[in-house]
């Protein structure tokens, strides 16, 4: 799947922000190039910490082309105004960060400025990384500098003037970049603070889950209220969460750790890669993230609790075969979906009971459309859920009928609007991603927990 991590409006933001900013802030000095340090010069313990931090930060995801060399960059991020490519962060001296000193690396993380002194586009989420401590930046640096150097020039961004002028970014920063490291909240536990530090910083959860303003920056006051990424809806993960069953720390922990939860289903889309990375890190960090995020979700209202219990009870009751086949979509559901989603086989290898699906209760039908069309592809050589896609066997009308039926049968939300358009769009992006993602696709790590049925 091609990652279109940046939001179109971010590009507009560059323009406006750039205009508003004074040239004065635009200039930054270069930091002297160094000889690439010998991998042996780094403390192995530090490198190992860096590895876990890189997994928490999901670095591979943006800095690796599917099937390409890890961290060699070059992932195209298409926007209506042009394409931005992720950079090579291997220690290659010519095309990577081999000549970067530790200080240069810290500055990039903190301020979004490369060694040469140029501003980086905010596709690189330094608005979160500014929270990362120096120690953690140093560990990340040690890790990246001990990776195999890959000679891979980053393709030139295809942006038109004046967006191709990096100083424009300076204005954006002036408006939106809050500096300073994470300040612990002494009223909270150490675990909560650890979680907050990770979520707000390296893990940059808000990059996807927070809506952006017209200038492409995360909207202040709307943290975690839901955003967009790669043609997927990144759900609200605060009090406005559309999840039919309220999340708690235990559920979040196991979802983030193993990629699925019986009451919520399987992580898909861009989230699959996030959880696959989280499966390899210290589980205490995942627990800390879950603890903090539970407080962001807030305690469920009595209404949410009641609804949650209801859908859980319904999901656990023996399936009643759908009888009203005259409803458009019902017969398709019964014939094509229910055979997996109503077998009673537990998640993730059995389909989730769709009453529990956040996608179906979500604000728009994008995620369901994506899944119905593309299915869930197996991970090479690993136990992993498989769902066949129906792009080739269903017409748009048939998909729409199913989606509308699912919405009415499995959620208490009003009908979606624009279902047909969403499906067309999903089909178009699916075709694009099929054309542009070359095999072999390499799963970064365990996209799902495969140890348990």
């Amino acid at each position, binding site marked *: 799947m091609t990652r279109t991590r940046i939001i179109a409006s971010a590009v507009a933001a560059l323009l406006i922000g750039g205009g508003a900013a004074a040239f004065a802030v635009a200039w930054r000095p270069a930091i002297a190039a160094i000889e690439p340090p010998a991998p042996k010069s780094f403390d192995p313990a530090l490198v190992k910490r860096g590895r876990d931090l890189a997994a928490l930060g999901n670095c591979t995801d943006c800095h690796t082309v599917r099937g390409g060399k890890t961290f060699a960059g070059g992932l195209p991020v298409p926007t209506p105004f042009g394409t931005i490519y992720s950079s090579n962060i291997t220690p290659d001296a010519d095309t990577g960060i081999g000549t970067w000193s530790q200080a240069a690396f810290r500055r990039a993380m903190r301020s979004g400025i490369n060694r040469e002194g140029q501003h980086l586009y905010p596709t690189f989420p330094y608005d979160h990384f500014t929270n990362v401590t120096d120690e953690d930046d140093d560990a990340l640096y040690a890790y990246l500098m001990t990776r195999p150097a890959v000679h891979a020039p980053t393709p030139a961004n295809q942006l038109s003037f004046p967006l191709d002028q990096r100083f424009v970014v300076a204005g954006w920063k002036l408006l939106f970049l809050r500096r300073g490291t994470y300040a612990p909240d002494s009223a909270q536990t150490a675990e909560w603070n650890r979680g907050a530090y990770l979520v707000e910083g390296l893990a940059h959860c808000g990059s996807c889950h927070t809506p952006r303003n017209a200038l492409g920056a995360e909207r202040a006051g709307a943290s975690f209220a839901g955003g967009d990424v790669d043609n997927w809806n990144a759900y609200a993960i605060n009090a406005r969460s559309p999840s039919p069953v309220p999340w708690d720390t235990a559920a979040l922990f196991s979802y983030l750790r193993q990629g699925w939860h019986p009451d919520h289903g399987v992580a898909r889309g861009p989230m699959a890669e996030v959880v696959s990375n989280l499966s390899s890190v210290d589980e205490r960090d995942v627990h800390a993230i879950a603890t903090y995020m539970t407080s962001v979700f807030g305690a469920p209202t009595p209404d949410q609790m009641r609804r949650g219990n209801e859908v859980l009870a319904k999901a656990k009751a023996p399936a009643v075969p759908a009888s009203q086949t005259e409803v458009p979509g019902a017969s398709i559901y019964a014939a094509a979906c229910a055979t997996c989603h109503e077998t009673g086989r537990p998640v993730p290898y059995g389909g989730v009971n769709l009453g529990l699906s956040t996608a179906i209760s979500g604000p728009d039908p994008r995620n369901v459309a994506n899944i119905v069309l593309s299915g869930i592809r197996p991970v090479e050589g690993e*136990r992993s859920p498989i769902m066949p896609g129906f792009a080739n066997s269903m017409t748009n009308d048939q998909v729409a009928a199913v989606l509308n039926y699912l919405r009415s049968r499995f959620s208490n939300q009003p009908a979606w609007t624009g279902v047909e358009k969403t499906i067309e769009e999903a089909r178009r992006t699916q075709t694009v991603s099929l054309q542009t993602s070359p095999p072999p*696709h390499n799963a970064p790590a365990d996209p799902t927990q495969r140890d348990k049925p």
Partner: protein
Amino acid sequence: MNGPGNLDRRQILAGGGALIVSFSLSDAFAQDQAAPAPAPAPAPAHPPKWIGSLKETPFLDSWVRIDADGGITVFTGKAELGQGFKTAFQQIAAEELDVPFKSLKVVTADTGRTANEGYTAGSHSMQDSGTAILNAAAQARALLIAEAARRLDVPAENLRTENGAVIAPDGQRLGYGDLVAGNLLHIQAQPESTLKDPSKYTVVGQPVPRVDIPAKVTGGASYVQDMRLPGMVHARVVRPPSYGAQLIDYDAAAIEAMPGVVKVIRSGNFLGVAAKKEFQAIKAMRALTASAKWNETARLPKQEDIARVLLGLPSQDSTIFERKNPAAVGLKTIEATYTRPYQSHGSIGPSCAVGHHVDDVTTVWTHTQGVFPDRAGIAEMLRVPPAKVRLIHAEGSGCYGHNGADDAAADAALIAREMPDVPVRVQWMRDQEHGWEPYGPAMVTKLKASLDDSGAIADWNFEVWSNTHSMRPGGAGSLLAAQHMAQPFAVPAPKPLPLPEGGGDRNAIPIYTFPNAHVVHHFIPAMPIRISAMRGLGAYHNVFSIESFMDELAIAANADPVEFRLKHLEDSRGRDVIKKTAEAFGWKKGQKAPDGRGYGFAFARYKNLAAYCAIATEIEINRETGCPRLVRAVAAVDSGQVVNPDGIINQVEGAIMQSMSWTLYEAVTFNDTRITSIDWQTYPIVRFDAVPQSIEVHIIDRPGLPYLGAGETGQGPAAASVANAVANAAGKRLRDLPLNRKKIKDAIDV
């Protein structure tokens, strides 16, 4: 063409060059009764060395039949499983008989028509059946010449054969059909045959295209799954949810009221349902499954702990090899333990069988590997004499050993008997194949060896712990249906398979020459998980262990792995395949693979008495994810006289791909009660994105030497070669199969 519409059984079965040749049921019974298989002849005083299955079935016309019209039929008791030997047999017979390849027919395993050749297993088909056909054909040709000589009154030496006829010096031709009058070929084989000079071969040694492929790529009825007998119903079995589960209750009435349902069949814990149409049967099976209540017991061992569990079980221990030379002294000793999980055959098509019970005789079309032994088991299960059961082999999806085929045949027999006169097709579902097939057994090997001051191996210790590797039917108790039915049959006591071929100890004895060697087989009778034969049997794990350990020793001796092997190997044919592989791969002493890659090498002679195979591989591993990928493989094989080179290449290519998949990915999973690897989500195998750039197979032909078979020779070497390449790339040795991404990632550390 065998298009839809005309559903006469004879045509369907004959369709498109399929395995099953034209016959009818009444013919079959007539044969069974009128022409019982000849009783085995007393063994000749000096049994010839190389006549294969002619030993057990000595009448020539059990192998070659020539009709008055000159039509020739070759019979084999072996079952075509996709190895392509049917084509090879046809080549052999055409060559020795001097008839055009296309003029022959080959009939495969059928208890009503062919010799009893036991199982099609152990890469034996070429050795046993191929050799029998070779000799039978040669002797038939000699008889035809002798008969012509008598009729023409010309010395036999002056006659030659060509194109299905004996030709006299004056150009007179006598067609084979004219010469066979009477029972010319109903005669016992001689101990020696006059065989054609291999240098004169025109058909043998050629890559003749396989006879079965055209039908398979055009939709011909090629498999037992494709059979449609008039009036046939579709049956499904509802298996217990776990081993030993007891059926408490189910709702027969509701299921029998479902559309199309003909019958619900229950006998003890055996539960099945038959319906007119296939999808009706599936729906009924689902409903039946939902309504059935079972009592289950938690009795499976801990999966993660299986090696320890095996080592803790009582075993029968025997030293199977011992050599002593006190003069050789080891200075540097290393030891290692290698383990293998249970692994699935994982046929792409779940098992299937068609049963038909008419006039007290039950006929089953099945893709079993042994029609005769399976018949014995089924007859015992039905409590009838074997003559009341006929098994006819029909091709199935590739099985790679003892999968669900025999069990499905038993299911079909049991259900067909409940529904006299109605043909019943039983098709297993995916989860049934994955959950109930008898797996390749988990194994543990412990190795210990010392190097002397010259870097040579001074002493070698090898111990292997394993269950048996064959629980194939011989008795009813091996069959699931017989275990589950009311008045069930007990699972027969397992037996170790005897050496020299061996089971768990297959290939346990090193082919290398070591001054001191000690090899122990710990045979474990208790079987916590249902197991049986899987391609290569113990050789897969034993060769993986030995050849991994040879690399560990080579590293300890600071020697090149190929040189190190040659240093310990006397067998010249073995040396040849090693050298050929190394050369074709571009193996160089002191070589270093590019970053992130590794090279591996391994060698074995299958069973120490069959084909030789050496394989070199290049593996790439992703440092960050641990994900391994086979980049290329090069193999050399010596399987004696080559009959069909492309057939051998195809088998070895397949063995490399399959063994790579076993080695990198595969393990049966279970909790304390149930098998949990029940489909391709939970039992992943190789997919196209892991297919290497190239696989190259070189054949060393040995004209005139015995056929050695090739079906299983690649399994062990491929595993070890891949493991050695992974160790080379990761810088660390992995000894616990499968060598999956997670283990490689952990081994790389950072």
